[in-house]
Structure formats: structure tokens, C-alpha cells
């Protein structure tokens, strides 16, 4: 397989993704006779041949999933040679650069090729990517990777200094993307590379200073650029979890107290936890009643306590829990409650910033905006 053509099962020279877990995957180029070691044991490439994509593959100490490579998976596990661009930014860049099959794109620098693969996916097979990188080592590695991924015919990698030497094409690009230290100094060469009939421009900068200079340069009268916009994306990935929230004892275990509160003149019945019977207003969760009050440490001893479960919005609570005391049975406060609900939890640490994206339209001679 390559990034460009997909079979249903693994073939010699395919680049596959070995998926061991959400944050644990790696790319593998399948070569007859080779063996790759993983934490789940060895993978013999020969036994990979013909294995169906998207199915489990047994190693000696466990199993993994074998997946077809996509630019998105590649982004998650490519060898980092530089800071790379991630999915949210890549998606926005692709859309805002108006990319589609047939687009001609100039990129600098190539870096680790994270964005390049996504661009190629979108512009192939009729389009072309001219990608410029001034670090020779990276340049060579990227070229090799594109070859391995079957993308060579859609991309040309150039080793050059874009600011001083410019892009390799003129009046040819539909879009230019910059991810370099001094993007403002490359605005001119970007304009030169773009078609005189117009095109789109994007610069990615981690720092606001580069962004400020780039915007100022783009807005200079006569630059040919207009519709300058800057934005920033913070993508957050949520974990869905069931949480057990303990319900504190406010002292309604005593039946006299309970009676006084509910029937008394204090008008407080609506404010007490017996209000959990209210039914209709009850919400996004359920009350768990530990029916064996002896089991004092039920919650701490197990994350999934054996429980009698009652949904508060159904009428069952009144039979199994809440209202029972009114029928003369044991007051439910003698048991322990916990509230259970599904919730979304953000990871403790998240990426709070990747970079500023500055977009502009190149429209020489028409650079005014109403």
C-alpha cells in the first residue's frame, strides 16, 4: 500500500500503521523477511503480508491493529525532525487555502512533512506540491519518505533558502504556505510564486511578533494581498467517564427530623435530599444506594460498587429508595447514597497553543477591501 492507493490487505512495501493504543502507534514499511520488535512481541513482516487492514494481528505477547496509513495517522506517529503541525491546524489550512484536486501549492519549510502529506492527499493526482526546506538533512529524509509513500510524482522537494532564493516556480501556485522563522521576509517571494490571477496565502507562527510583522507586510499598499485574517485553534479532546459522586450526610437519617422537615412549617421540604424523589426535574445521572449499610467502605474498596441502582427520573426510586420511609420502612438515609453520572473530563494537561495562522488573499491590482 501507499498513501495514495489502498488495498484491502497488506502487501510488500506497504507503509502501515501498527496501532497499539491511542497514544501508542508507529509506522512500518513492510519488507519481506524483516522482523520488528514491539512491546507486545515480534512482528514478522512475512506474516503481515496478506493480513487484512483494520483487523487484529497477534504478536507473541499480545495483539495490535494493522491500519492503512492516512495523513492524520502519519501526523500522530511520524519521526519528528521539527515541531510539527497537528490536525486542527492542518484542516483549517487545507480549507482556507482553497485546496482541492489540481491545486498547485508552494510550501516552506517541509519540516517533518506532517502538513505536506495532508496537502498531497488533497491536491493529488492533478495538482502538485513544491516544498522547500533549507536544512539539507531534512530535505533528503522528506524526499525519501515521499518516495516510500508512493507520492513522488505529486511532489518536488527543493533544498534552498526561500527568503533569498525564492520559490522554484513563478506565477504558478494557487496557494503558498509558510512555516519559517521570518515569514514577513518571504511575503514577496510568496507573491511571486502565486498566479497573477490570484491565490491564497497562509503563514503559521508560534509567536505573535512574527505574526504582527507578517500582517503588516501583507497589508502594505501594493503588496497585492488583502483579506488578512489571523486566528488560533485550541483543540481539546475529552474523556468520557462515569463518575461516582458521594452524597454527604446532612442528618436526615433521624425519622423525627425528616418528618419535621417534610411536614413541618419550616417549608424546607423542597430543599432536602429527599427532594431527589421529585422525578421530572431529575437530570443527567442516577442515585446508587448501597443497600448493605454494613459495607462501610464500599465506595473506596471498589470503583464499581455492587449496587442497587435506581434512576431518579423514573418512578422506581419511590419504591426502592426515596419514598419508602413514608410507608413505614427503614428510612433510606440509613443507607449510603452516591450519585452517578457520565461526564467529560479534559486531560490534566492539554496543548494550549500551537501557533497563529494568518491567511490572506493574493489579488494583485485589486488589493482594496470594501
Amino acid at each position, binding site marked *: 500500500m501507499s498513501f495514495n492507493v*489502498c488495498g*484491502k*490487505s497488506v502487501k510488500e512495501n506497504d507503509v502501515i500503521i501498527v496501532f497499539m493504543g*491511542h497514544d501508542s502507534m508507529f509506522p512500518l514499511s513492510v519488507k519481506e523477511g524483516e522482523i520488528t520488535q514491539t512491546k507486545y512481541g515480534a512482528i514478522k513482516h512475512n506474516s503481515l503480508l*496478506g*493480513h*487484512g*487492514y*483494520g*483487523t*487484529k494481528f*497477534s504478536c507473541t505477547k499480545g*495483539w495490535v*491493529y*494493522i*491500519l*492503512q496509513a*492516512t*495523513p*492524520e495517522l502519519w501526523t500522530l506517529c511520524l519521526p519528528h525532525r521539527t515541531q510539527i503541525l497537528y*490536525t*486542527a491546524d492542518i*484542516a*483549517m489550512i487545507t*480549507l*482556507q487555502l*482553497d485546496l*482541492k*484536486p*489540481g491545486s498547485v501549492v508552494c510550501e516552506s519549510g517541509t519540516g517533518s512533512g506532517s502538513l505536506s502529506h*495532508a496537502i498531497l492527499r*488533497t491536491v493529488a*493526482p*492533478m495538482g502538485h506540491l513544491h516544498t522547500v526546506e533549507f536544512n539539507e538533512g531534512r530535505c533528503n529524509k522528506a524526499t525519501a519518505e515521499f518516495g516510500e509513500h508512493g507520492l513522488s510524482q505529486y511532489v518536488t522537494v527543493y533544498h534552498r533558502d526561500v527568503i533569498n532564493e525564492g520559490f522554484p516556480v513563478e506565477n504558478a501556485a494557487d496557494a503558498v504556505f509558510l512555516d519559517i522563522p521570518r515569514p514577513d521576509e518571504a511575503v514577496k517571494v510568496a507573491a511571486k510564486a502565486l498566479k497573477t*490571477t*490570484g491565490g491564497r496565502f497562509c503563514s503559521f507562527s508560534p509567536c505573535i511578533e512574527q*505574526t*504582527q510583522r507578517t*500582517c503588516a507586510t501583507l*497589508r502594505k499598499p501594493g503588496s497585492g494581498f*488583502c483579506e488578512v485574517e*489571523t*486566528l*488560533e*485553534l*485550541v*483543540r*481539546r*479532546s475529552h*474523556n*468520557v467517564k462515569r463518575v461516582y459522586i458521594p452524597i454527604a450526610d446532612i442528618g436526615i437519617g433521624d425519622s423525627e427530623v425528616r418528618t419535621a422537615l417534610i411536614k413541618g412549617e419550616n417549608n424546607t421540604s423542597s430543599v432536602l435530599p429527599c427532594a431527589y424523589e421529585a422525578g421530572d426535574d431529575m437530570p443527567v445521572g442516577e442515585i446508587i444506594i448501597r443497600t448493605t449499610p454494613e459495607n462501610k467502605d464500599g465506595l473506596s474498596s471498589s470503583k464499581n460498587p455492587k449496587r442497587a441502582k435506581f434512576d431518579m427520573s423514573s418512578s422506581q426510586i419511590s419504591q426502592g429508595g426515596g419514598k419508602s420511609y413514608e410507608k413505614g420502612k427503614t428510612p433510606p438515609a440509613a443507607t449510603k447514597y452516591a450519585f452517578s453520572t*457520565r461526564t*467529560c473530563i479534559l486531560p490534566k494537561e492539554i496543548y494550549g497553543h500551537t501557533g497563529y495562522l494568518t491567511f490572506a*488573499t493574493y*489579488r494583485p491590482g*485589486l*488589493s*482594496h*477591501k*470594501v
Partner: protein
Amino acid sequence: MEDGIALNKTVILQRNNVLKAVKLIPEKVIVFERMRFKPENAVGLPFGSVFEVKNGDLNPVNSSLSLEEMETAGEDNRNLVDTHGKSQTLNREDLIQMKEDGATGKEIVQSLVENSSSFAGKTVFSQKKYLKKKQKKHLAYLQLLKPTSRLICKLYQEREPAKICHMRIDSMSQLLTSTNVRHGSKVAVFETCSGLLLGMVLERLAGKGSIVNLHPGETPVNLFAVSHFNFPDEYWDNLHSLPLHKLAPLLAGNSFQSTFDESNKTTCESEVPLESNDSSTDIANENNSKHEIAIPVDIKAVENLNEKACNGPLKRKLSLSDKEKTAIRVERQKKRFNHQKAAWELLESRNMDALIVASRFHPTPIVLSLLEVLAVSKPFAIYFEYKEALMELFVRLSVSGAAINLQLTDTFMRQYQVLPERTHPHVMMRGHGGYLLTGIKVRPFSAQQEK
């Protein structure tokens, strides 16, 4: 497509960040932001051209109105006394009179400046701000832009968010990227986003590959957004629509023939979608009827346009004889039948490359069913407005083992004002923006060496 503004194509009108998509029909008056004009004068000019509306026509202008750049700021305001608008001696009636007398926008702004007692006392920054405000209001300038995914997204996001389930442009971009949609993909789509997603997918397929467009009711309800893209006719051949309620029969192993024999009767009798039972569908229908089926003149065009008619309606009416009407209906039904058959066969092969769902319906039953037709190792992406529904789907998919790399995400999109001495995030931002669930379908049971 790069040839510039042309009649019978859609353009995006822009004035002061207000966007509108409109088809340029010969001699037909366009109304936009209280301006009324015919499109003819714009024909042949490049996209991006600026026009002033005068006497109901578009007049190309080339003045550099770049008011964005104001070099200084931060002057203090210690001597500022708020006059609460009392400094302007021209009143509303004066302005109306001037306009009736044929004054241009520029003349009006000039008069306003001359009649402002406070203008001269303002700082340079304030003067420019004042000028810009008045020019925005009084200059009848507008720009004609080329419709692109980006602009059509922006247009819906800003003007009619309810018609695209309040999706923001960042979610839209991620739907396409995370499902690896590209030239030649076979994509299953269920959307109630006015066709915007279908249009974006069609653009990336670029004439190769296929879309199976599942839709509620009997007929595709509202694909208005697709018509904005000015796609070449052949793009439409890749769009195959099928009612969602045919999905369970298909999955149950029923044949196309048996499933459609019965329901076709119903379809012929009543063309009204059966699912139109809430307000949002009603709006869609209304929209649909507004832009009714195009009626072509010669017989070749009938075929072409009818085909479009099945997918995306155009906007023109002509009076036709009953016989002609019948002929067109028959032709239309045949086309639809062919597309439905193609859709059925694509789904039946259970080998789709991507699945995208973005609708106002609960995603769980739809996604769980459509996952059946997605090939293994292929990505899917679901947008929904409320997190709770996606949380549910997330848990179901996790438990089932049918998908890996599941991610429930939202994106915080900040737009910035980057101007000298005034760089900061926009003070107002869109709050409500929806959630995405993405993942990759796998076969959960172990099958070493399945070939």
C-alpha cells in the same frame, strides 16, 4: 472556472463582512444590503472586483479604500467630552434629500465631515474611525467574490448558522480532513446542513469517486448550498441519494427491487418528504420550494438539468404544457431511480472509504447503522451540536470495540485583530459551536490472516 464573473453562475457578494451567495441571472435585479442592481456590468471582470451601485447598475471602481490600516493609537482621551451625537448638523432628512438629488456616497460622506463640529477636534485616529464608519454606511460599494468552500462555509456560519446545525468552519474543516476525503473516495454522508458538506466533499472528489447521500424523508430535502459551488455538470454524476429509511432493509439483506417496488408507488403519489415534522425541516422545505426545478428549453438540456434537479435545484420558472411536465417528471424519476440504485449497490458492497454525519438527528442509530457499510480501517467523523449525544455514541462505540482512536473533541477558535498597537483576540467570539467524534472502524474479533 478561473475565467471571472459570468452570467448564470453563482457569485458571493460582500460588503462590510456581510456575505451573500447569488446566481447572476441575466437582467434580474439583485437586492443586497439595501442596494438593488442588475448583474450585467460585472460580466467578464475578475473575481474580487469592487463595484459601486449607481442607478441600478454595477460600476467597477478601483479606488483604494483600504481603511483597515490606521497607524497610530493610544492617544489619550483626557480632553474628550462626549457630545452624544449633537455635533452633526445634517439630519436624516437632509441625507435622504441628498440621495434623491443623486449625490454619490463619497459626496455624502464629505458633507457629513464638513458639517461635523467635532471632526476637526478629533485625533487622527478618531477622524479615520469616523470616516470609516460613515463610508461604510453611505458608500454603496460591494465586491464580487468567487464561491469557494471557505466563503460558502463562512456565509452559512455568519448568516444562517441554524441551517448548518450551528457548525463552525473549524468543525467543517476537520470533518473532511479526519475522514481522509480525496480524489476518488467513496464517501457515505448523512447531513442536514443544506448540502454544504455534500458540496465540500464533491469539491474534493473532483469528479472521481462517489458520495452516497443518505437523507431523511423520500427526497433530498435541501441541497441549496451545493448549487453555490458552480460545479461542472459531471460532478453531479458522483452524487447518489438514498432515503435513510432504506438503510435497515439494505442491512437486513433485502434486495433493491423488493425495497423500492413498494415505496415507489408512494413516492410517485406524494413528493412531499414524510419526515418534515419539525420546524427546521419546514424551513428547509420552504427554501426548497423557493428555488424550484429549472425548466430547460431544448431537449438535451432537459437531461442535464433534470439530473441536477434531482440533486440540487436551480432557480427559474417557465410555463410548460402538461405533456412537457409529465415528460420531465418521468425523466426525473428515472434519473433518481438510477442514482438510488447506484447508492444501494455502493452501500451493499459495504466498502465505503469514509463516513461523515452532521445532522440535527440523534447520531447514535444513524452512525451505528452506517458503520456497517464502512470498510474496516476507514475513518469516520460525526458532528453534533450537543455533547451529550456524542458522549453516548462514544461509550457505545468504545464498548462495542467496533472503532479505535475515538476522540470526542471541541475546538476553541480565536480570531485576532492584528494591527499596530492594537493586537488582541476579537472581543466578541462565537460561543456555541458543537462537538466532533472521530474514529477508525476496525473488526473487533481476531482474524489472523483474513484474506
